[in-house]
């Protein structure tokens, strides 16, 4: 094998690239239909973006673990400053915003923080001496690392991203070996705090989203409209769907955001349960790869990073699917590789790139130990 194909090519994680191409390709197919049977405006740009970010991920995968370790904290600090910058601009300019316009590109720092927080927390536990994992000193720095970006994002206000950042960091802390009872107590505390947070911490539109999620029929034309129309799309698709390009919910504009957050409903209407299962299975394969890396990686940092990034991707998928199926409030989290949108695609691809790098190093080490 190694004789015919040059080593750099043979070393590429072809299985994963193939899997990603299939999911994103299906995304192009679905977006083609969402635009009423047209490559523009979404399908072609989605394909191009995917290509660009895949190259970016492959480039990222060439860096070694040490490079990531070295850059983790500086990058974390830069992104945290950018979050602060967004807040300040918002405060000065009036009205909240999530974007940072850098002239050439517009960056959404909260998106970048999702992978960055994983790397930072993982790096912290990597640096922490083994014996200190069950001390107070293992807890507060991690909480600080998570707390700063989480509170900045919450100010935007962007509840979905806040929760993703916190959940990602927590997952790494959990895997790093913090005492179990902290998480049990934490969960119990959440059960108490959540209602309080609902009444005092959430914006009115966020509160409405929660109440609407609990009973969408209460407000069928207002905020509940999204959830109801999404369920209509998925439910009316049935087993095999209405057929490609025949989705009435999406084509007649009943389904709002049918190309972004609710792309799964657009897909399910035309492809039915079979399409839905295929997408879920494809994501399962992707996450299995990620967790496989976590278990098999050789260094503590790469183990924690692999599991943490996989969990971040999982959050995207799970919260989006729960939202479109009426199991979670509408929080505005896109579905990886299927939803149209550059920002989230970049975040996911950064995760993928880091995971690929871990994959590559793991294989290299295995190879070197074998020879």
């Amino acid at each position, binding site marked *: 094998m190694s004789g015919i194909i040059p080593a750099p090519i043979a070393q590429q994680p072809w299985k994963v690239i193939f899997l990603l191409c299939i999911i994103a390709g299906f995304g192009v197919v679905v977006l083609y239909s969402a635009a009423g049977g047209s490559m523009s405006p979404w399908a072609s740009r989605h394909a191009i973006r995917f290509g660009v970010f895949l190259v970016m991920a492959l480039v990222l995968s060439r860096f070694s673990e040490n490079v990531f370790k070295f850059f983790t904290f500086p990058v974390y600090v830069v992104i945290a400053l950018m979050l602060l910058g967004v807040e300040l601009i918002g405060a000065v300019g009036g009205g909240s915003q999530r974007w940072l316009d850098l002239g050439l590109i517009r960056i959404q720092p909260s998106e970048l923080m999702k992978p960055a927080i994983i790397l930072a927390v993982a790096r912290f536990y990597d640096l922490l001496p083994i014996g200190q994992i069950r001390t107070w000193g293992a807890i507060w720095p991690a909480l600080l690392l998570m707390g700063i970006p989480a509170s900045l994002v919450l100010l935007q206000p962007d509840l979905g991203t806040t929760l993703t950042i916190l959940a990602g960091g927590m997952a790494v802390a*959990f*895997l790093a070996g913090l005492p179990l009872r902290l998480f049990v107590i934490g969960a119990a505390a959440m059960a108490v705090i959540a209602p309080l947070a609902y009444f005092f911490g959430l914006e009115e539109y966020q509160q409405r989203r929660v109440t609407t999620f609990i009973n969408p029929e209460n407000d069928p034309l207002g905020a509940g409209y999204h959830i109801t129309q999404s369920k209509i799309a*998925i439910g009316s698709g049935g087993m095999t769907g209405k057929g490609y390009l025949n989705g009435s919910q999406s084509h*007649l504009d*009943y389904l709002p955001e049918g190309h972004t957050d609710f792309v799964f409903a657009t897909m399910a209407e035309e492809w039915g349960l079979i399409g839905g299962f295929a997408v*879920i299975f494809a994501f399962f394969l992707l996450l299995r790869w990620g*967790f496989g890396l976590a278990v098999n990686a050789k260094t503590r940092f790469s183990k924690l990073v692999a*599991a943490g990034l996989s969990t971040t991707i999982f959050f995207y998928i799970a919260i989006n699917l729960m939202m479109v*199926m009426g199991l979670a409030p509408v929080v505005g989290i896109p579905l990886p590789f299927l939803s149209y949108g550059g920002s989230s695609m970049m975040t996911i691809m950064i995760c993928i790139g880091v995971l690929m790098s871990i994959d590559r190093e793991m294989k290299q080490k295995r190879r070197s130990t074998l020879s």
Partner: protein
Amino acid sequence: MNRKRKANKARKKRKLITAASQNITFNRRTLFLGGAQAAVGLLLAGRMTYIAVAENERWEMLSESNRVNLTLIPPRRGWIIDRNGKPLANNRADFRVDLIPDRMKDKEDTIAKLTDLLRLSDDEVGRIKKDLEDSRGFAPIEIASGLDYEQFAALSVRLPDMPGVAPLRGFSRQYPSGAAVGHLLGYVGAVSAEEYEEEKNPLLITPGFKIGKDGLEKQFEQDLRGKPGAKRVEVTARGKIVRELSKREDVPGKPMKLAINADLQEYAARRLGPESGSVVVMDCHTGELLAMSSMPSFDPNSFSDGIGFNEYGMLRDDDHVPLRNKVLKGLYPPGSTVKPMVGLAFLEAGLSPDETVVCNGGLRVGNRRFNCWNRQGHGRVDMAKGIYQSCDVYFYYFAQRIGMDPIAAMARKLGMGQTFDLPVTSQFYGTVPDPEWKRKKYKQSWQAFDTVNATIGQGYMLSNPLQLAVMSSRIASGRNVMPKLLMPKRHKLAPNLDIAPEHLQIIRNAMSDVVNGPGTARRAQLNIPNVKLAGKTGTAQVVGLQFGRGGRDVQWKFRDHGLFVCFAPLDNPRYAASVVIEHGGGSSAAYPVARDVLTFLYDRRKAMRALEALEQSWGGTIEQRMASKMNAYVARKNAEKASQNAPAPETDSAAEANE
């Protein structure tokens, strides 16, 4: 010791952690985390299965109800046709425009464009704006109907600039004879809130749908309505129609055939001219009503399009009451037209037609003298002369001998005081007074002068023109004729009355003498070979004699009503008619109308020639006269408004000066 225990405790509490144990913890917790995520994945797969399979039917239905919009197509209304199949009411293809407020973007701009395109008047724009304010958003508002094709086309081209504007092709009701059939047919109009509450039929709030509001249109609403068609269209969330899925044509309402003769109906209406009056013509064997005209009337076409304020005001303010159907709701003292009936009662009571009384211009009844209309007196009067000369004294005299009861019984037998089984909203049945009636009504006993008054059709006696025509029919045919408005499948002769045929013949001959002999209405003769008209004149006093004789020389509203009942031909009666001219100044206003209307049945050209000459002197046809009346009314209203407004500024400035 103490310190040692503490240290022990701390060591116990703090587990020994190595890289290996940490790895085991990591792997265990990774397995847990991965397992939890897989569980969430399974939960999602299960949830999706539940929605897409178990609840599939429900969501599919909702998806369909999103996608498919069902619109009703108002059914074409059944035609109303006359006995010969000529339409009295039909439908004309119509272009109309509605506005759906929810779909409008710039309301002011859209209305401005529509005003420009359709040349809407300020009045109409005001109504549209008010409708827009009151609207519930999804329900269409009518902008205009009856557009011509050019306007419709111009509008359709500019639709993309005006979201919310919905042009429609539909049908609207048309009455070719206009005002001549107003009272008979009624009219149609948009459904009111109360009517919708009553029926709750979604068809009623479909744009363009109209419901019968009066007359036959209202009575036969359910038959005429038909079944709505339906159109299933695919619509986007914003209500834009993508394509038509299926269409079911409407089932037009059943045509309704009337016994009316459309031409005769119109002729009679025209012949009434500027008078306030009515004409009833019927088949005296079957009771089929050939004409039932009441004038002046309203134009049902303008009512059906939504009548303008001015036109309605004109109708309401007119002292000739164009809004009342006088055939059914006009009650008049029948005057001398009852004399044939009273004569018949005398004969049936055993009075010989040859018995006479001498009339010298009046008769003392009790302590009061009752005059004959002819103060010079008629000399010796028998029954025939009593009828053809309409001698009051003859009837004063013999009525006292026979008594009121046989007369009242005969009146009822001939249809007076009767309510007929007709598909009409209401009919006034009048009064046939008798001793019992008076006791009940006034708690007074019947007096001889009551009888005397009743025998000449005055006093308490009241009847409507239809009853007069029925009375005439029953005398003419001897049959118990009931008036019929709908054309029966087979002509059915009414059963005979139990009145001796020879008695009827005596009365008919006397009625012939009214016209053809030495009677009171010789100008009523038909100039048709072999067709003789028989009739009886009547003059009904409106006010006491102190105002004068009630002739043409007094104020209009004090003039006597002119009445005439008749039938033709004499030898073999076929048609019976009644004519009432309110405040016509006497029967001479009525019988020329009857003559011309019956002439029309035999010789249309001759009748039309007479009519055209008359119409020229009146100032044109019904429509022309209504139009000029309308203009005069509007001009007068404007003048009134101007005279009210003119002095206002002066008083204002005066008030300011005082301050």
